[in-house]
């Protein structure tokens, strides 16, 4: 039978296999074009997972996370220039500095934005993103404005160039996942889920909602900022409209919705499906931005057929099949086991 210990062992084994396979990608696949896709996929796994801490667990949908992504990139570029760090592996050591600066920005923005709820919050985050973009464009002395900000260029050959960035993105994805997992099972995480369900009720049973939301926002933004920093170094040149791109913020939200909002693995699955698909469309159909049409279609399919996302829907289906087999084909599924499958859907 499915004892908890065996299920846990199976989960850990699956996790180890996934990590090992992910770590071996650049070893077996040396075509830079493919590794490039892997870099961006790992990047979106991290971004979607980090966004999910705020949007999924806490229920506050931010469409402005691109601001933290771009801010992290700019902060990183400026830190490297200011400290005179040479290109190579050394800059990666300073990624957490960009994360810390992004956390400070998130503290300021969250302090104000989190006084609003629901749709108002969504709009405030969009407005905040465009404000940051405008600042990046207009603070020419600091950011270089429209002519962009350059990073030191690593002295690696074309064949090898993507590999260090792939591992950096993979580490960030794993760190985001570990933090997301940790939060999900902590008292703090339980408080976030309570806020998502009913914020006033959460306050009434002692959850310090404002502090919790702000903390989740800062953790989420800090991770996104660090990923943005690595992105900036990877592309070596950033411009306000590409570093702070509304489409980045919307893509990662779509990935989370596709995979399963508020689940641990949903964002991973969504990113692994959508990002390679988007890049494939971009490479094959040029800069036509056909992928935007595909994104719209995916969004419609998710809303119509999988409103809860893949992970909860498929998990539910599998458990229902197991329950049916246990009862036998002739018997109707008992209500208790049916409701029980519903009950466990939320846990990752």
């Amino acid at each position, binding site marked *: 039978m499915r004892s908890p210990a065996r299920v846990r062992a199976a989960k850990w084994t699956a996790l180890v296999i996934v990590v090992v396979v992910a770590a071996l990608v650049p070893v077996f696949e040396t075509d830079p074009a493919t590794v490039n896709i892997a870099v961006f996929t790992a990047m979106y796994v991290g971004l979607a997972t980090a966004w999910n801490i705020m949007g999924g667990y806490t229920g506050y949908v931010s469409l402005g996370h691109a601001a933290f992504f771009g801010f992290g990139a700019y902060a990183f570029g400026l830190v490297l220039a200011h400290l005179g760090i040479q290109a190579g592996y050394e800059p990666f050591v300073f990624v957490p500095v960009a994360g810390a600066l992004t956390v400070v920005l998130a503290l300021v923005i969250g302090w104000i934005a989190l006084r609003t709820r629901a749709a108002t919050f969504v709009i405030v985050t969009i407005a905040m993103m465009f404000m940051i973009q405008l600042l990046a464009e207009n603070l020419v002395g600091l950011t270089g404005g429209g002519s962009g900000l350059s990073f030191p260029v690593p002295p690696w050959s074309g064949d090898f160039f993507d590999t260090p960035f792939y591992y950096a993105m993979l580490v960030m994805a794993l760190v985001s996942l570990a933090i997301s997992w940790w939060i999900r099972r902590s*008292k703090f995480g339980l408080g976030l889920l309570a806020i998502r*369900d*009913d914020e*006033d*009720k*959460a306050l009434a*049973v002692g959850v310090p909602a404002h502090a919790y939301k702000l903390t989740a926002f800062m953790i989420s933004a800090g991770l996104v900022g660090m990923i943005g920093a690595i992105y900036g170094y990877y592309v070596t040149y950033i411009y306000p409209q590409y570093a702070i791109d509304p489409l980045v913020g919307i893509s990662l939200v779509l990935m989370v919705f596709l995979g399963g909002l508020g689940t641990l693995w949903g964002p991973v699955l969504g990113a692994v499906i959508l990002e390679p698909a988007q890049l494939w469309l971009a490479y094959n159909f040029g800069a036509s931005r056909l992928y935007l049409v595909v994104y719209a279609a995916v969004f419609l399919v998710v809303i119509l057929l999988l409103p809860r996302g893949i992970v909860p829907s498929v998990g539910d289906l599998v458990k229902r099949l197991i329950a049916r087999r246990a009862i036998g084909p002739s018997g109707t599924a008992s209500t208790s086991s049916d409701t029980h499958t519903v009950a466990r859907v939320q846990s990752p």
Partner: protein
Amino acid sequence: MSLLEVESLSKRFGGVTAVDGCSLSLQLGSITGLIGPNGSGKTTVFNLITGFIVKDDGDVRFNGRSIAGLGPNRIYGLGIGRTFQLARIFPRLTALENMLVPVRRSGIRALFSRGQWHDEKARAMEMLAAMDIANVAGLLGGSLSYGQRKLLELAAVMMARPQLVLLDEPAGGVNPGLVERIGEHIRDLNQQGVTFLLVEHNMPFVMGLCQQIVVLHRGAVLAQGTPADVRGNPAVLDAYLGS
């Protein structure tokens, strides 16, 4: 000794004075009923005491300390729990998780402690068993019946061992058998030392359960005393039937 003192509390919403110089005091270990016609300000008084809305005038003291101006979560932390009209629970958390939300670690420790400790879980299961709903511990809150939600909300509020609990219509919308059971649970908890203030429209329920009744009318206290006193008061009959 009085546990809670409400002193000439007032709250206006635009031109409407919802609570108008309301004063009442709750004795430690008592069960007090707050009654009054619809719109007399009962729920507003609850929201003022529990910090959901900010008073315009007056004061609320709990254990001799002013709590007016504190947020709801702080007030819960000081030992005042509440339930809501129409039983509010967390629909996408299991019943057991609903029980564990109120048990908190303060500050940064919340980040580093697990959501479900063994001893907390055991206590939660005990509470659920006491309410006869231990069998639904693993179900999502949203899949419970209304009566189960009422019991779960009451059980969850008790998890942090509050000294005072405010119940907003504990008998509202449930069948007579369950009304009786809820009354017994309140009496049991009261025996264990919990003080209650409850808003209720079910008169036999209130009169049978409470030692003290406070009648609210147009935001002010119209009468207070034992159930017998209040029942015989002509002003109370007037307020209810209209004159």
